[in-house]
């Protein structure tokens, strides 16, 4: 069981300073300008990072890594549950059966395999009820992608109230299996639930859930780690193809794809993916330019979870595979819209009662000072400094943009001298600036 600690969020993204070459790729990719290069190494500001993983994608030397739990943790538990997302299955080549992948996971040490999308049916019910009960909190933004929730907390604090305060299908799945096993008389301490994650944000959300309470998930294993293990097994031996008793529908496994969530709801819904698109859309929601009485589904990865930073497979190929599998599962439904819930109403109600998020706190990173007078002075200072800086956003100072450096200088975290063009040691810089960037025209 994990508990949130510390002042800020837990972050799964880490920088290995032995490998980092201080190249500045990551500072440019970060959507919250959370990274600076200092003394030749990238440093991530804990209060600003939303665990989207964009820095991980662009690091040329793999100095940025995503810290997973030790796989050996599994052995601590008698019952070891793999919580598998549909995108895991879609990483493997055509012809590899779901049942073979399950069999490999069991050989690796898991006692139960449970696909997290089993929680989708309950999730849809919960979300519909939430929307009925919270009319005043329109437009509704889904809490599915933890990086989106964190992005809203730090950059769009006024929209925190619009987030649907419910956990994700992953939690429904985890709570369901925990309750079922404990109902069967198994001691909770003997059960370990391990989520196979396609991204850093999900890890961070498990380690320090927004609501600051205990998560029902014991550990998180990176998708690429298990993918490699399973691939090695598939290459070596004949894996049995046992038929699985499917109880998932196409609708369920499509949930983590773009549009897979919003397609289940009525009203004016939107499906937004890709971090830049998400930021742009949030700006528009904030300006009340977007009218929505349905769900606004947002995921920071392009192609949603199929584009997760840890996925070995190409995102478009993975989407295609999930869709094909969805068609196959639907063909087994014989015209029914979904499989009927196999649990009693009482049981479902118990799971539902554990799904709400009490509070998501705004944590603005834009705020300069508590004192408005002082903040005003700082804004003026930033603007003045910006006017002096070359505006080339070259990143050589270690900050992503000249604006960011101006803010750092004003916050006394950097000096004007950090700009190589303004540094007294650079005697031909003014000339270079003029020749390449036409510096004199900058403020026109």
């Amino acid at each position, binding site marked *: 069981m994990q508990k949130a600690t510390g002042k800020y969020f837990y972050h799964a993204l880490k920088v290995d300073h032995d490998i980092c070459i201080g190249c500045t790729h990551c500072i440019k990719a970060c959507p919250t300008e959370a990274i600076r290069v200092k003394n030749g190494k990238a440093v991530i500001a804990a209060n600003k990072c939303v665990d989207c993983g964009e820095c991980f994608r662009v690091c040329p030397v793999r100095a940025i890594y995503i810290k997973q739990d030790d796989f050996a943790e599994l052995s601590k538990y008698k019952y070891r549950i793999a919580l598998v997302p549909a995108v895991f299955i879609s990483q493997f080549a055509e012809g590899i059966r779901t049942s073979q992948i399950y069999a490999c996971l069991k050989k690796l040490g898991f006692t139960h395999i449970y696909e997290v999308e089993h929680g989708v049916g309950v999730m849809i019910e919960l979300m519909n009820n939430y929307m009925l009960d919270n009319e005043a909190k329109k437009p509704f933004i889904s809490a599915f992608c933890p990086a989106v929730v964190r992005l809203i907390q730090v950059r769009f*604090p*006024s929209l925190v109230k619009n987030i649907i305060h419910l956990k994700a299908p992953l939690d429904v799945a985890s709570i369901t299996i925990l309750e079922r096993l404990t109902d069967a008389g198994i001691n909770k301490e003997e059960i370990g639930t391990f989520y196979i994650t396609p991204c850093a944000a999900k890890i961070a959300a498990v380690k320090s859930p927004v609501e600051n309470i205990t998560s029902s998930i014991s550990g998180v294993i990176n998708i690429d780690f298990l993918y490699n293990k399973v691939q090695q097994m598939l290459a070596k031996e004949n894996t049995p193809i046992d038929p699985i008793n499917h109880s998932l529908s196409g609708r369920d496994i499509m949930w983590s794809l773009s549009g897979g969530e919003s397609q289940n709801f009525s009203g004016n819904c939107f499906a937004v993916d890709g971090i830049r698109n998400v930021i742009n859309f949030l*700006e528009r929601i*904030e*300006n*009340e330019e977007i009218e929505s009485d349905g769900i606004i589904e947002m995921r920071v990865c392009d192609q949603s979870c199929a584009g997760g930073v840890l996925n070995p497979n190409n995102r478009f190929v993975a989407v295609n595979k999930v869709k094909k599998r969805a068609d196959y599962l639907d063909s087994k439904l014989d015209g029914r819209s979904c499989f009927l819930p196999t649990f009693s109403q009482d049981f479902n109600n118990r799971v539902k009662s554990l799904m709400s998020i009490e509070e998501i706190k705004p944590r*603005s990173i*834009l*705020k*300069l*000072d*508590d004192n*408005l*007078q002082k*903040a*005003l002075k*700082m*804004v*003026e200072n*930033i*603007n003045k400094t910006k006017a002096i800086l070359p505006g080339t956003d070259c990143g050589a100072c270690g900050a992503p943009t000249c604006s960011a450096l101006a803010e750092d200088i004003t916050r006394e975290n950097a000096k004007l001298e950090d700009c190589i063009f303004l540094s007294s040691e650079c005697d031909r810089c003014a000339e270079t600036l003029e020749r390449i960037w036409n510096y004199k025209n900058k403020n026109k």
Partner: protein
Amino acid sequence: MELSFKIEGGNFSGAGSASSEVKRTLKQLDVDASQIKRIVIALYEAEINVVAHAFGGKIEVKISADKVFARIQDQGPGIADISKAMQEGYSTASSKVREMGFGAGMGLPNIKSNVDVFDIQSVVNEGTVLEMTFYLS
């Protein structure tokens, strides 16, 4: 502190840059979210008015500890009957502008409902000056 922006008549796709810049600054100042919202909405509407009706103009925004003052000045056809323009649903926007989803006749009424002090002066065939004040406390 002061911010100023140019507005280009007819450039609908570029509209909104002034209000986003002001929004960013107000967030840095940690101004209350509901205050930011009404300021941004009024500024955006005012910007769109200039884009939709005038040849061009400018926005000047002064932010102080107790209030935000904005002055939007344009060169354009001016408003012949200001009291009519203040009525909800009254619009002189061309059918082209309406096709684009603007010109519903809600601009000025919407601005007025979001500001604390509102002043509008207009000379036909010259232009319009709109002044708005938002008290922060």
